[in-house]
């Protein structure tokens, strides 16, 4: 009895790779010449879809570049990020990021008629440095393309040099993207994210909301 099970298991392993692409292959009815040991494979060895890109290892590093839109006291401009990814589960990776925003810009803060100091910066003004901790969750992949959603929290500094205004920011991050493997240990990643949270600034500004949208693209290397 155990010998027969061993034969079935061996046969199942031998045909498993072709079953992964079973949806693409035309259905072929079993014939009388088929081995009796192969017949139960349809029911007992269902193809298991991978939960994440096959080339993702438990650790990876990456770099990305893009644009961040800000406004008022949210810095925006060129966004440059460094990534460190660490596997948490079959589908989830921790994505720790160091994020830099370069916007610059002219002075846009002033005292309004009630003597309140307000800032009215544009979409791409100000500079920022932020450390971000997010979790990337892979959805079902389509060939080399693997979409994902991600979310987390960051903490950092925003600075508007022309106004002499700076503050601490704590934004939440939520978004998604797609990862495409281009070589055994290299992938390109494009992502878009919403940022919203709070910042506490000096110069009598106090607590102000943070809101922005980031779009980045980059490359990841398996470690």
């Amino acid at each position, binding site marked *: 009895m155990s010998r027969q099970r061993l034969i079935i298991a061996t046969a199942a392993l031998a045909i498993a790779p072709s079953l992964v692409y079973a949806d693409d292959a035309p259905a072929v009815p079993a014939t009388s010449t088929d081995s009796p040991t192969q017949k139960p494979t349809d029911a007992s060895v269902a193809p298991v879809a991978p939960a994440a890109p096959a080339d993702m290892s438990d650790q990876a590093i990456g770099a990305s570049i893009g644009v961040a839109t800000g406004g008022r006291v*949210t810095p925006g401009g060129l966004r440059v990020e460094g990534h460190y990814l660490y596997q948490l589960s079959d589908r989830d990776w921790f994505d720790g990021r160091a994020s830099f925003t370069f916007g610059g810009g002219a002075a846009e803060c002033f005292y309004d*008629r009630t003597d309140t100091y307000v800032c009215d910066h544009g979409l791409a003004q100000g500079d920022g440095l932020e450390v971000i901790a997010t979790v990337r969750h892979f959805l079902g992949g389509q060939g080399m393309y693997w979409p994902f959603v991600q979310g987390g929290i960051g903490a950092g500094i925003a600075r508007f040099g022309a106004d002499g205004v700076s503050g601490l920011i704590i934004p939440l991050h939520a978004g998604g993207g797609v990862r495409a493997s281009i070589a055994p240990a290299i992938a390109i990643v494009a992502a878009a994210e919403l940022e919203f*949270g709070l910042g506490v600034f000096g110069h009598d500004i106090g607590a102000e909301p943070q809101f922005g949208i980031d779009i980045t693209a980059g490359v990841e290397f398996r470690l």
Partner: protein
Amino acid sequence: MIAIAALLCACESNDVSRDIGARCTDDNDCDVRCLDDQPGGFCTTLCDSDEDCPGGAHCITEDGGVCVFACGSDGECVFLNGGYTCQAVDSQGAGAKVMVCLGSD
């Protein structure tokens, strides 16, 4: 709800800016010039005619041509937070009188 509230706050507009209307003590508080003889100081820009001013502002002859807010009555100058009334003054470039918010003498 928090995100929506934050977004609404982030899009809130202000009636005044460093271009025109902000309080000031010197030119550094403004993009161009501070009229420090106005109550609380008044940021303004230089102009030759109304076309050089933002919407809702006239170019008047004071200081060789500066932009100030247009008005129809004193009530429309209340947002400048006291000391301003609606006055008829010479328009720069147009050779006519225009009604604008200026500090009361």
